[in-house]
């Protein structure tokens, strides 16, 4: 018995030119088509051209990258801490926990201050979103979201609404009402729709627009009233974890950080990425603009925080220590930009001298990882939220100038935390 394999000659209409010819199978984007021999050859040469174009584009990209690095290197004539050498050192800092806000039944994931400098909105893993009066620790509003892991929450500039979202892939806006008869959840408005979890949200200068960041790798700008998508921002290669809007004086830009280790600065009107920075070695969990708007800080799972200067277009400082091995989840600046507060997954908060690059204080007080941290709008206090279910507003008690205090800021201070829980 003999086994013979032979090519079955199909005769029919070519899928490309439709002429009646002898056809052969051809694969285009994993779809099988039947082309005549002429069209099959044309397709083969087209593929060849595409490869040439791809190769030339790749080499152009490489040479542009090389040029950019050269130009940037020329501008890097000095380090930030060198410029700050003659600046007076900060002394030891003692910070007191002034309040502990207890009430979340589960991990606190996000918080935001109201512009009135006393109210705080916070969200947690169990779906609860609570608005607190941080002076009295009273809970003023509470709503339960239909989803768990509410990873993002924000206070509207007017103080009359809050926005939140998480695993529901949406960002919803709740108007705040003091009418006891009104059900807050009934007035909920769904504004943003993403195709993956919502990681961050922020109102722009008004209650009318919201900026969102999502696990789907994009950021988007939405009109609150109509729910319409105004602009989308594509460019991150992975989940976007955080965003921050530039201080209003510096114009319409915002910065975002993601799991692709990149921090990107965007033009809100055009949707274009104007600058990108890729020096972190792991996910960027938090980004925050420097108060002047000329720089921004980032906190990452690589256990470092970094400062990027937007005008020099490069990283100008790294805040790290060999002893710090856990990721930084959240960062914020003090009012003058001199201090950088960073919450870490090892339950601590490190306070860095932005100019000198050294750590000035380490705060203990949480019993689980610090997930969120924000300085109040007037700079008198900062609040940290943690997986230990609490929020702790703290403010500074005493600053000891370098000459009075013999303790070097570099040595780990043994500060006993005074927790005034009400």
């Amino acid at each position, binding site marked *: 018995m003999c086994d013979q394999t032979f090519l079955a000659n199909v005769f029919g209409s070519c899928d490309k030119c439709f002429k009646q010819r002898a056809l052969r199978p051809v*694969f*285009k*984007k*994993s779809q099988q088509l039947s082309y005549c021999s002429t069209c099959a050859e044309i397709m083969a040469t087209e593929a060849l051209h*595409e*490869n040439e*174009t*791809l190769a030339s*584009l790749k080499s152009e*990209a490489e040479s*542009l990258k090389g040029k*950019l690095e050269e*130009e*940037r290197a020329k*501008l890097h*004539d*000095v380090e*930030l801490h060198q*410029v*700050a050498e003659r*600046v007076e050192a900060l002394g030891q800092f003692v910070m007191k926990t*002034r309040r502990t806000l207890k009430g979340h039944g589960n991990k606190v994931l996000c918080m935001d201050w109201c512009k009135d400098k*006393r109210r705080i909105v916070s969200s947690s893993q169990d779906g609860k979103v609570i608005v607190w009066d941080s*002076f009295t620790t009273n809970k003023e509003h509470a709503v339960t979201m239909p989803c768990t892991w509410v990873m993002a929450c924000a206070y509207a500039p007017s103080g009359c609404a809050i926005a939140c979202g998480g695993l529901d892939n949406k960002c919803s806006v709740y108007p705040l009402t003091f009418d006891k008869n009104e059900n807050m959840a009934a007035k909920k408005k769904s504004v943003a729709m993403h195709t993956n979890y919502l990681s961050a949200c922020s109102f722009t200068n008004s209650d009318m627009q919201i900026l969102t960041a999502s696990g789907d790798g994009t950021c988007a700008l939405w009109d609150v009233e109509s729910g319409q998508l105004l602009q989308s921002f594509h*460019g991150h290669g992975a989940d976007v974890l955080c965003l921050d809007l530039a201080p209003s004086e510096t114009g319409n830009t915002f910065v975002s950080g993601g799991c692709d280790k990149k921090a990107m600065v965007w033009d809100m009107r055009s949707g*274009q*990425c*104007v*600058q*990108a920075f890729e020096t972190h070695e792991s996910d960027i969990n938090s980004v925050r603009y*420097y*108060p*002047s708007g*000329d*720089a921004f800080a980032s906190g990452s799972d690589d256990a470092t925080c970094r400062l990027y*200067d937007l*005008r*020099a*277009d490069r990283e*100008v400082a790294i805040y790290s220590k060999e002893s710090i091995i856990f990721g930084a989840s959240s960062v914020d600046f*003090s*009012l*003058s*930009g*001199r*201090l950088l507060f960073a919450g870490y997954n090892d339950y601590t908060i490190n306070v860095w001298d*932005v*100019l000198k690059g050294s750590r000035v204080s380490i705060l203990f007080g949480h019993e689980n990882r610090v997930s969120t941290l924000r*300085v109040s709008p*007037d*700079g*008198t206090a*900062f609040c940290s939220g943690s997986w230990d279910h609490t929020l702790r*507003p703290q*403010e*500074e*008690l*005493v*600053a000891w100038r370098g000459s009075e205090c013999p303790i070097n800021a570099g040595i780990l201070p043994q500060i006993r935390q005074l927790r*005034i829980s009400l």
Partner: protein
Amino acid sequence: MSGSSSVAAMKKVVQQLQLEAGLNCVKVSQTAADLKQFCLQNAQHDPLLTGASSSTNPFRPQKV
């Protein structure tokens, strides 16, 4: 097989790089000096840096 889409993607990368190359950048010595200046100018107004006095501190312990 997906040649056209990777060509399009590469074109975007090249465009982005050209955009970044066109930025007017400033030397670090200048920008760092500006950052330092901003810090020093605003240091007195920074309550977390200077320490808010007890009387103006809205978070002072409440008298029970």
